[in-house]
């Protein structure tokens, strides 16, 4: 039976960082998720900001790991070939906001954040062109950055897979048994062994915890809704711009993405069950808040609505290593979980190594970023098309994605992708027409590649069928 040093449950940004960190230290790891792809939870729908760390309460795990993680990101981004926007961030407020901003600055300094500065209106105007006239002051955190959170997660997993890591998707674990020589893990179909278990399942944390015999961790959910604007609106905010924070949330911000869009959000709505629908009231809240902060906004340019859920347990992250059980649980990783993830992973790795896991040097295979024809010079692109004409065949007109790029990603991903999976990797169907031109062709290309019928291509999971045969009269024909 296959045996691993560590089995990591949950392929969000936290699980992916742990997987990658441990794999690169020469440990034999497997990443397990119940979904059909990696990054299907909060890590795919958040603000994508690597916070500086001024917002976290003093002496918390949040503060510690956020500040550490922030420093780690640029180098990791470089290694993975992932874009990172070192744009800084702003918290802005009216003439009465100076006190709150100063408190944030002080908290930031206490947390170890460098490069914080309070700006007045004229200082702000040098950075941003569309601030509402009521905005008088701002806290400028130069160390904040932006990334594509889902792309980053995907890249981390790819890097580990290239360096000896293994992955199991669609794996619904139903038993975890402690035996003399480690844990026996099973979904009733496929069994394997692991010495250590790392549980990074966010909303599913108790599903794994209960199988290991741990008491349930109480979870609460706060939904965050977003609106995404057409690329034409890029520049509305040149960096994340937050309002002055309230007790519950950092507020609804205006923010650029590394791909050249602008978004507004998130709301902070407490919900009973984990679900990601978007509501009319949420959208209206976003519109009202943004107009107080930003001018020249054109809501007609919204191309997409979406939402993510923050999973919390108490006020801080909950990170616990049960050394008797060889069981690590990382729970309640709400914001700033993305920022903190690399530092959490380093902490998990160090704890396991202290406990006795052996670090081994590996022959590092770097991850090659996906080809992006827009990043090539004309000469490079010409040469590429000469080698493979598919790189001259544009499928997605809005984002200019070629058939060559699509085939490349299908080819290098070791599991069957959905249209949503391809979208997150390449931006195909993610532009201003949201796939109304290229979606049919994308389905065809994927079906041809997987040598299956178009009706077997899914949007997300197995139940999310897209097309069916004509004569059957419908996908759900009785």
């Amino acid at each position, binding site marked *: 039976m296959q045996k691993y040093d560590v089995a990591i449950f949950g392929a969000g940004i936290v699980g992916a960082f742990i997987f990658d960190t441990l794999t690169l230290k020469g440990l034999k790891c497997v990443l397990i998720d119940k979904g059909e792809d990696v990054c299907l939870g909060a890590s795919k729908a958040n603000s994508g900001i690597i916070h500086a760390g001024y917002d976290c309460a003093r002496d918390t795990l949040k503060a510690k790991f956020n500040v550490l993680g922030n420093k780690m990101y640029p180098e990791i981004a470089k290694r993975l070939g992932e874009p990172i926007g070192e744009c800084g961030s702003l918290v802005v407020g009216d003439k009465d906001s100076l006190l709150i901003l100063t408190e944030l600055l002080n908290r930031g300094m206490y947390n170890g954040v460098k490069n914080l500065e309070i700006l007045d209106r004229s200082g702000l105007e040098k950075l941003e062109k569309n601030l509402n006239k009521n905005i008088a002051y701002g806290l400028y955190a130069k160390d904040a950055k932006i990334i594509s959170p889902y792309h980053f997660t995907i890249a981390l997993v790819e890097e580990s897979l290239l360096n000896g890591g293994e992955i199991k998707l669609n794996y619904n674990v139903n038993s975890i048994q402690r035996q003399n020589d480690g844990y026996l893990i099973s979904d009733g179909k496929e069994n394997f062994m692991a010495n250590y278990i790392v549980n990074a399942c966010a909303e599913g944390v108790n599903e794994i915890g209960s199988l290991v015999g741990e008491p349930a961790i109480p979870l609460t959910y706060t939904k965050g809704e977003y609106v995404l604007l057409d690329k034409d609106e890029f520049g509305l905010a040149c960096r994340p711009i937050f309002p002055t924070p309230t007790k519950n949330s950092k507020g609804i911000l205006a923010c650029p993405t590394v791909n050249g869009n602008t978004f507004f959000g998130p709301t902070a709505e407490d919900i009973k069950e984990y*679900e990601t629908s978007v509501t009319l009231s949420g959208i209206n809240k976003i519109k009202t808040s943004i107009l107080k902060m930003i001018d020249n906004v054109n809501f007609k340019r*919204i191309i997409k609505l979406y939402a993510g859920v923050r999973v919390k347990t108490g006020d801080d992250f909950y990170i616990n290593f049960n050394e008797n059980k060889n069981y690590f649980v990382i729970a309640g990783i709400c914001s700033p979980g993305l920022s903190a993830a690399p530092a959490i992973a380093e902490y998990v790795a160090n704890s396991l190594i202290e406990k006795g896991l052996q670090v081994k040097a590996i022959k590092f295979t770097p991850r090659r970023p996906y080809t992006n024809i827009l990043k090539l010079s004309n000469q490079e692109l010409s040469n590429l098309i000469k080698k493979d004409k598919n790189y001259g065949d544009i499928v997605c007109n809005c984002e200019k994605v070629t058939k060559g790029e699509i085939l490349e990603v299908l080819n290098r991903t070791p599991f069957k992708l959905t249209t949503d999976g391809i979208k997150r990797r390449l931006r195909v169907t993610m532009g201003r027409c949201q796939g109304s031109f290229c979606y049919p062709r994308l389905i065809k290309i994927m079906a041809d590649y997987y040598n299956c019928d178009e009706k077997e291509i899914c949007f997300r999971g197995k139940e999310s069928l*897209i*097309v069916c*045969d004509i004569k059957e009269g*419908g*996908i759900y024909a009785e």
Partner: protein
Amino acid sequence: MQNNYDIVVIGGGSAGLASAIKASKYGLKVAIIERDNKLGGILNQCIHNGFGLSYFKQELTGPEYANKFIQMLDGTNIDVYLNTTVLEIKKHFEILTISPKGLEKIVCKGIVLATGCRERPSGAINLCGSRPAGIISAGSAQKIVNLQGKMIGKDIVIVGSGDIGLIMARRLRFEGANVIGVYEIMPYPSGLKRNIVQCLDDYNIPLHLSKTVVEVVGKDRVKGVFVAPVKNDFSFDLDKREFIKCDTIVLSIGLTPSNELANQLGLKQNPLTNGCVVDEYLQTSTSGIFSCGNGLHVHDIVDNVTRESERAGENCAKYVLGQLNTTTPHSVYFGDGLRYVNPSVFYEGDEILTINFRSSKIYKNADIIVKSKDKEIRKINKKIILPAEMESVIISKKDIVGDLIVTIKEHKDE
């Protein structure tokens, strides 16, 4: 093929074809660049009939209509580039294209932009709820059913009453789907009257006006929608919302010109059409670049696209030959009752001037009035004017003494 032309037409749909054919009649060297693997544009997926009634005086399907023009190419020396996308246009007309053959630079003296339109996405109408499989734009649905031979679902709700949605309602019914209804937020349909009659009424598909989808339900695949009446201030009457079980939502919520290249070039845009600002020759704010068809403003009848685009091709040829008269410009404004007007500028002369526009609401028994310096030049009485149908007035420039203003005035007494 060479890479030096007098005129390059970007887009090989009905607009591109008509303008290229007209331009080549002036003895100029013309090329059409089309990103698809065949000419014809959106017409290729419009396998229904109703095309060509005015231009050819016969009822054709979309592909048949396109073919008439594709055949006309035979008698010309127009070069056609297929599978070729224009990536960029540099000032003074160097065009960078990409195709499976590689990158290519093409130099020319005049350009006709005939890039067509695209569909607005769900975000544009703030479609709330979940985001499962089974939400599809009408154009995608049309492509999947008509060109790829697949079906998109069984119990179908159509959001928006655009023409493609209406045509698809009928098409999906033909293929055995249960088309539950068409929901339109406005108090009037946005598609053509004839499509309401021939696609909905004839098949007992209900059209619900002032009613829209306020929430999508379903995790993996659509399970249903909540619809609610729309109040006069466009807020939703959520107390009266009702659930409708369905597995598919087809969006037919409007088209907007594909203006990426125009924007890249910094051509002046008209926020009311989302296309370029043009003069009477269909020339944009950069001399030598012309715009026509759905890439200029969204048309409902292809015959009008053809006529407009013939003018663009002709004028682009005249520009290249130095024959375009652009002295003494005047503006065209619009007043009450219009949503927009094209062109924005015309020049003194003695030819005729075609003015296109759309009304801002339904008018019954109303006058279209064209005035120049308070002098009424033209008054046309219409039994009905619909926002869904583009109107045009043709006037003789000889009668004009200055700027023009177009208005619609309803006969109050009736």
